[in-house]
């Protein structure tokens, strides 16, 4: 179980020596509890305390790493069941499943298309994480060739799907220089698969139909010397996925059940009866670690990548909206222009108020690092310079033909400086409360 800051503090020397670079032992203890500091920063901690603290901090879900020249995918190490409790850390990897029976040129074309797939979402580059290549042929050489073909086009990480150790071994040879995931060990082949995984120092997926069998297998495999594993609980529908994956997450975190403390791989398109995109979405939301897609469709992949980005956003950060110029009630060049910060609650209260008032308007939302108007002003994140800069960045001059900018009443003090920063503009001081926007516009804005 995780210890609280005060519990950890009691195990520390309590000398406030500052050798850890924190001002007090309690401050350090609280950082440790939040997993934002490392115990090794304290040179004075006793061996006994160290043992206790380390036992409490070992990650309950093992971190698994798949690598290739062009990137890496890390999954595991999650610490919570619900994202609001802390955050989800390692985004599930999205892979596209290909088969070695495909014509090599066709295979290369597919890989090239998918490899080139990039979309920009609020400045973040989103893309497919890698490819899963399946040895449908059953022939080691064919498998190896298919892998070489993929690697000749793409440097993305791979998942090698092979049912026997011979084929797996050939696959590893073909993907030399990278660290793919080997899929999968099962009740039949695990002993030989373990040998291949150990030899290649690669993580190993483990497949079984029930959690009982899965737990048996992982224990045996761990005893045989493989640390990094990925679980395939064999789920095919919305309900069994939700229940199995939730159970696995809870077992790992709430029961610290080590045999099932590994990330999970799923194949949402394996069952033709289900809507692959919607099941993949469920796996992103509810505890999937590696998600292997049957279909590569840019529209659906974009939606899934955005969902993944959203769900794995740190909820502890202040809720922000994207800076920019927002349109409310279809404004035109004569509509009023207001400015506020990008703290979501501030933004929403103003946007809703303007929306509800029926006034068409432009709302310039500046980057104030998610702070409210007064807080941002106090911290120097919402001053004349920044407002002027964002007004320029977001081209407000092209949106409106007038030159009037309404600022929040709380920062009336900025009006003078802003007029200096934005020559030719008239700065109007708006109301202090969003509720008064309608009456303010009625009184002050002439259409």
């Amino acid at each position, binding site marked *: 179980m995780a210890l609280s800051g005060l519990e950890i503090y009691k195990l520390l020397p309590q000398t406030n020596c500052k050798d850890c670079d924190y001002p007090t032992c309690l401050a350090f203890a609280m950082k440790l509890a939040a997993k934002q500091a490392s115990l090794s920063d304290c040179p004075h901690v006793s061996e006994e305390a160290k043992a206790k603290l380390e036992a409490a901090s070992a990650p309950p879900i093992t971190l698994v790493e798949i690598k290739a020249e062009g990137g890496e995918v890390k999954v595991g190490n999650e610490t919570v069941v619900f994202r609001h409790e802390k955050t989800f850390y390692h985004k599930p990897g999205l892979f596209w499943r290909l088969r070695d029976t495909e014509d090599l040129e066709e295979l290369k074309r597919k890989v090239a298309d998918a490899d080139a797939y990039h979309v920009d979402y609020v400045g973040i580059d989103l893309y497919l994480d890698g490819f899963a290549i399946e040895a449908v042929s059953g022939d080691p050489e064919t498998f190896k060739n298919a892998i070489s073909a993929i690697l000749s086009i793409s440097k993305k990480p791979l998942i090698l799907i092979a049912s026997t150790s011979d084929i797996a071994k050939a696959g590893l040879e073909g993907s030399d220089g990278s660290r793919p995931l080997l899929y999968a060990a099962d009740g039949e082949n695990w002993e030989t698969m373990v040998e291949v995984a150990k030899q290649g120092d690669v993580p190993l997926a483990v497949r079984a139909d029930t959690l009982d069998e899965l737990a048996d297998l992982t224990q045996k495999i761990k005893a045989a010397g493989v640390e990094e594993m990925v679980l395939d609980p064999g789920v095919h529908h919305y309900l069994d996925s939700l229940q199995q994956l939730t159970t696995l997450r809870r077992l790992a975190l709430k029961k610290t059940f080590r045999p099932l403390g590994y990330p999970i791989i799923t194949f949402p398109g394996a069952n033709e009866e289900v809507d692959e995109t919607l099941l993949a979405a*469920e796996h992103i939301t509810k505890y999937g670690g590696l998600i292997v897609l049957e279909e590569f469709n840019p529209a*659906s992949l*974009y939606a899934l990548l955005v969902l993944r980005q959203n769900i794995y956003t740190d909820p502890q950060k202040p809720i922000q909206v994207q800076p920019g110029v927002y349109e409310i009630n279809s404004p035109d060049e004569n509509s009023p222009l207001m400015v506020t910060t990008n703290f979501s609650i501030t933004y929403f209260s103003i946007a809703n108020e303007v929306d509800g008032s029926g006034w068409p308007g432009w709302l310039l939302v500046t980057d104030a690092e998610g702070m409210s108007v007064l807080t941002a002003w106090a911290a120097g994140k919402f001053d004349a310079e920044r407002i002027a800069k964002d007004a320029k960045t977001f081209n407000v001059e092209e949106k409106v033909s007038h030159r009037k900018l309404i600022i929040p009443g709380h920062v009336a003090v900025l009006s003078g400086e802003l007029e200096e920063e934005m020559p030719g503009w008239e700065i109007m001081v708006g109301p202090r409360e969003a509720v008064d926007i309608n009456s303010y516009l009625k009184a002050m804005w002439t259409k």
Partner: protein
Amino acid sequence: MAVEIPKEKWTSAVREVTLGATSDEGGTRSHTITVGGETALPFLHFEGETPNRPILALDVRSHKPEDWSPLLRQTWGKAMEDPATWAQAAEEAGADMIYLVLSLTTTDGEPNTPENARAVVRKVLEATGLPLAVVGPGQAEVDNELIVAVAEEAVGERLLLGLCEEKNYRTIVAAALAHNHLVQSKTPMDVNLSKQLVILINDMGMPLERIVMDPTTGALGYGIEYGFSVMERLRLAALQGDKMTQQPMIVNPGEEAWRVKEAKVGEGVPENWGEWERRALDWEALTATTLVHSGADILVLRHPETLRRVRAVIDDLIGPKSAA
């Protein structure tokens, strides 16, 4: 080895709320629909009951919305010209409920009037036997005026009336109280605010059995994670016994998804966004199913294809027992 399935022990349940009233109950609906009643986190049937499935409503406007995406206008076609026809089409498309939004202006651009609102609601009630929600255009004064008239016109129908917001709830709640309706309490994505408005409405004497809470959500890519987590937190609090969070939750993924560029616009977007219609439908469907997982009891949608896809997901999640 035998792995023991960890189960949470919840002490409380989501409140059951029944929408609509049949002729026996003083209304004219062909049947009523009950939502809520869960005693477990969404669909974890091994630790509690989900007696009522999440229901799917379709968004119908009193006047044809010219700003809707062409994809939606194509799909609904002429039905959009008349709210009664539209409601019928929605029922045929499989909606469990009609979510009727009164427009700010009529088709001629004249301001909507109480008389007109009465007539529209009367027509829709006659056109469909489904339970009905009626909400105003979202401007406090107009909302109050229209909804008070609607409440009176449809006395006894147990309509879901809205939108009640912290700055403007007293008039609508009073009208719903007087004429035996339910209310939708809408708050901006915050656990405390959701709870506070339920308290305020309840303090006016409105029984909790007649309040559905709308915690608000963002579309996929536009803040869905905030709505998602707020809903998860509300549901956890409800199951743990926090009385004022035990209302069933209504969300509007249709409205949210279809107002964003990804769904609305087909041209001038990056090539890798893929095919427009598929993207738009995925956008609405993913927004909806993600919220199903965070505990939504009523989802308001816009596209009949989304309704079909989301229903298939819910059918599976609810399990063989309840699906029958």
